[in-house]
């Protein structure tokens, strides 16, 4: 197992180097043999193995490759207006400042007159400051096995600069508080063919789907579990995915239609979830199964 992991890591490092030399090339799918689905009877052992693996990986996390790319893209002059995000984008801590910004979002941004999570805010900057078209970004906003969008790298870069900081969503701002309360209602909203809401799975302590533990998002201890590790490098498929993506995947499993990218609905839900985790320590971009 360990050798496989090291093999996968080396493959990753090589690919990271290759993509750094040719930045247009999408991040390729690394070998995921190490994450091959375990047999049913081995699942407990596999879970333990994964926890051990995650601990070992903390110092050399695959997310770093995306962070490095994100850092280049944050600083580079890009888009039709040929400006960098570093010289134009305010994440709430001043123009260009990324330190601690991720754990203090979602927050209200007067220039956009909207409550925005980190990903939504960066997209806003790309559109308003750099001149990219929203529809182009929203066309394929999340990574797949052959493609990682710039926004994913940028979110990972920004999130890295909140590593080991306490979550501090400004809930004393009435607009953020309002978004939190609306998000809480979205989480409770049952609909669709199976009558599911977010809370069906994530509203009480100590529940599981199959062997998967379900965090209770209504408590700080549970909510941080839903925040931790995002954006995350997902072993299944070998892709880097964001918190926005995760919200969409929950709605998919809820049998709902798809939430629009960088919308109020997702921002409010994230305000509820991350706001509930206020005071808990965010460990930075992580690894997911």
């Amino acid at each position, binding site marked *: 197992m360990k050798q496989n992991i090291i093999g996968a890591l080396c493959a990753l490092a090589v690919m990271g180097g290759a993509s750094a030399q040719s930045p247009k090339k999408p991040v390729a799918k690394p070998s995921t043999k190490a994450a091959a689905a375990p047999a*049913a*009877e081995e*699942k407990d052992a596999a879970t333990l193995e994964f926890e051990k693996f995650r601990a070992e990986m903390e110092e050399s996390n695959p997310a770093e490759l995306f962070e490095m790319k994100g850092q280049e893209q944050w600083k580079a002059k890009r888009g039709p207006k040929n400006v960098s995000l570093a010289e134009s984008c305010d994440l709430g801590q001043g123009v260009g400042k990324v330190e601690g910004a991720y754990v203090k979002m979602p927050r209200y941004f007067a220039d956009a007159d909207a409550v925005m999570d980190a990903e939504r805010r960066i997209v806003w900057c790309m559109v308003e400051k750099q001149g990219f078209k929203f529809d182009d970004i929203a066309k394929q906003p999340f990574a797949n096995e052959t493609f990682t969008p710039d926004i994913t790298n940028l979110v990972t870069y920004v999130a890295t600069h909140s590593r080991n900081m306490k979550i501090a969503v400004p809930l004393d701002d009435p607009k953020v508080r*309002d978004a939190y*309360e*609306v*998000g*809480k*209602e*979205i989480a*409770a*909203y*049952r*609909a*669709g*063919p*199976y*009558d*599911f*809401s977010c809370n*069906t*799975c994530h509203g009480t302590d*100590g*529940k*599981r*789907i*199959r*062997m*998967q533990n*379900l965090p209770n998002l209504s408590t700080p201890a549970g909510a941080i579990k839903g925040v931790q590790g995002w954006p995350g490098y997902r072993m299944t498929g070998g892709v880097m995915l964001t918190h926005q993506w995760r919200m969409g995947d929950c*709605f*998919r*499993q809820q*049998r*709902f*239609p*798809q*939430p*629009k990218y960088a*919308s*109020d*609905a*997702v921002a*409010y839900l994230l305000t509820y979830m991350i706001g509930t985790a206020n005071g808990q320590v965010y460990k930075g971009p992580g690894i997911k199964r």
Partner: protein
Amino acid sequence: MTKKMILAVAMAAPLMIALPAAADGDHRAKAIAVIKKDFQPRGQAGLDRLAEDGVQAICNRTGNKPPDYIEKAMTADQLATVKYPADGKLLGDWKEGEKIAQSGRGFTWTDNPGLPVGGNCYNCHKIAPKETSFGTIGPSLYQFGKLRGNTAETQKYAYSKIWNAKAFNLCSEMPRFGHAGALNEKQVKDLVALLLDPESPVNK
């Protein structure tokens, strides 16, 4: 359907007035408006899925704790929707039932709408002892038949519960598999057999 919706609306109106938390109502109204605005259809998951039916509306507005008189009236209404096989036989093939219980497929925007839908049973319940990967949102169903007896009454209960879980507990977390069109009569019978057939591993 129409009758149920009229009932829901008629009951929801006085209920909302009676509820004290007006602020919650505002946030809920905003949440519904945001949901209507911010979702897009994908695959088989159309926007029609965002609309609440009568049961969902009542459960959403009462925090899943409707007053007794609504619970009674509406569970009876839900029970009336259950379709039983014409020949009255409710016990199918437990081996087929096990396959249905294992599958969690169906109804998501990535599922092929032409393929059969799974029962999702192990996602939430312990059932046959051989399957150790089971969820805990619902109660354990292990030894369901052994504890309750494979009687006509128990068969009818199990069939009805799977067809429409809201016939017994209005705001149950469990989907209404028959009512939703996920499982057909034969599939529900096979699941009844998984739970009640003395030969099923559930009752060994």
